[in-house]
């Protein structure tokens, strides 16, 4: 059966770990248990209640949601605007922008993070020099650190949106646009009333993909803010879970955070499914 390999791989390396994740999250599971120094004990929802009563968890959750939302909105805005721009220029500038975007897209998250850090470095970076900011540190303030990470995230993820939306616009029948243009509609109106509705399926896909990617940002935060920023101010759920599990070896707390993330993303997925259904997509 053609499906067998896929099912084996997904079952073993996706479904089973999810099951384990849930399991670990209801046990008392720290280093001593892992290395066999002490027996494992069942805790029920103890880890969750500890997590939910911790103010820091809520702060991190809020930061994660706001940060992801800001990233998604910026990415979509930049991506769509540039996609429209692409349709309005001749081959040479189009190629230039396309190549630059592909370059940003291709850059691994970790190298992107180090390069952006270097650009904004307080002592040797060109950005502070150009803006005349002296040795202002971008990673010290909570918002400026998040902002820096946001720039990097938008930089490496807008190309996906741009290329996809551009491909979508190209598929729109020229006559439609022709008619709209003849009616004297402005660019913005054409986008709002003609392109956007026709591109809706594509926009839904890129939005959902962006939500998923930006909600899970790990490398950028970890590298650019040194593992979560000063006094943990730049933690997002993913990094928080990692620190809890692998730095403090509270594996069960980390797993509980993982479960929370899983549930949130599951909710997003359900919304996506509903949207697909409404569009009459046949599964």
């Amino acid at each position, binding site marked *: 059966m053609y499906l067998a390999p896929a099912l084996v791989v997904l079952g073993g390396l996706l479904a089973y770990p999810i099951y384990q994740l849930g399991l670990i999250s209801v046990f008392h599971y720290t280093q001593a248990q892992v290395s066999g120094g002490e027996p494992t004990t069942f805790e029920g929802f103890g880890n969750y209640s500890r997590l939910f009563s911790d103010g820091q968890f809520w702060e991190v959750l809020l930061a994660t949601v706001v940060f992801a939302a800001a990233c998604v909105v910026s990415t979509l805005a930049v991506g769509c605007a540039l996609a429209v721009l692409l349709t309005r220029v001749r081959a040479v500038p189009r190629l230039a922008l396309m190549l630059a975007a592909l370059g940003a897209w291709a850059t691994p998250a970790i190298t992107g993070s180090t390069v952006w850090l270097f650009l904004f470095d307080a002592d040797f970076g060109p950005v502070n020099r150009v803006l005349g900011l002296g040795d202002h540190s971008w990673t010290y303030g909570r918002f400026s650190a998040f902002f820096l990470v946001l720039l990097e995230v938008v930089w490496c993820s807008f190309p996906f949106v741009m290329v996809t939306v551009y491909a979508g616009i190209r598929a729109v029948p020229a006559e439609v646009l022709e008619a709209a243009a003849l009616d004297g509609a402005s660019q913005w109106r054409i986008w709002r009333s003609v392109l956007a509705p026709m591109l809706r399926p594509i926009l839904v896909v890129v939005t959902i993909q962006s939500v998923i990617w930006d909600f899970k940002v790990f490398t950028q935060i970890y590298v650019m803010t*040194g593992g979560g920023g000063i006094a943990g101010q730049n933690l997002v759920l993913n990094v928080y879970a990692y620190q809890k599990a692998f730095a403090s070896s509270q594996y069960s707390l980390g*797993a509980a955070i993982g479960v929370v993330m899983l549930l949130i993303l599951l909710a997003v997925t359900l919304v996506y499914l509903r949207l697909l259904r409404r569009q009459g997509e046949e599964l």
Partner: protein
Amino acid sequence: MSPVRQDVESRVNLLSRFTRRPGRTAAEATALVVAAVVAFPLYWMVLSAFKPAGEIRSGEPRPWTSAPTLDSFRRVFGQQDFGRYFLNSVVVAVAVVIASAFIAFLAATAVTRFRFRLRTTLLIMFLVAQMVPVEALTIPLFFVMRDLGQLNTLWSLILPHIAFSLPFAIWMLRGFVKGVPEALEEAAYMDGASRTRFLWQILFPLVLPGLVATSVFSFISAWNDFLFAKSFIISDISQSTLPMALLVFYKPDDPDWGGVMAASTVMTIPVLVFFVLVQRRLVSGLGGAVKD
């Protein structure tokens, strides 16, 4: 492919003719400026990799270098077994791309061409699987890999990445397989082609652009991986991949920026080359995947 291309080109021409306004020069200027801004970080990375140490550590950074040098690259390749790490990264990425493309192709064919019970459920499962935060699973995967005795081996990176790139690959490929007319399949069987033959000689070439597009995603996720590399390759540094090697040069208070940038350049170039090679197919592939 040429009629299709012509069609697309003429559409684009039409489109640009209709959107051509007094603003076109402004639009083109904007596009060029944006392109420059977007490309700047990469330019700066490559530039800094070739700068001598003195220029990097100067308070007056300049957008050019008067004395390009390979010192930073020498340091990168000299200090550690960088070639080895590079190879490890390549092995992981290639293995993931090939395996996930192959498995996803079979699965995508199955879910679009065959009717069976639970098909819709399965599709939804694939969709849901895409949303699973890989990072949250690091904890249980760590224990799974330990029990399999695969910690510190490249398998501990390859296997999870295959799993995580599969759902997206299947979902994307589905669109392409669907796009191939069923009539073609029937015609093939009429001509006496076996199912396997149809699959590999007819269907496979037709969905190739889609496979390329999905491969890009698997490749990136495997090549870029930082978290698994950090968590699963703990003690055997001969199995390290590039991201960890790069971090050696990045020490919080006193980073060796020249080394970091040289290592980053080495790590980015292969992906760039790969992207430029598949660029055409990628754009058409993405268009195809989301069109239906």
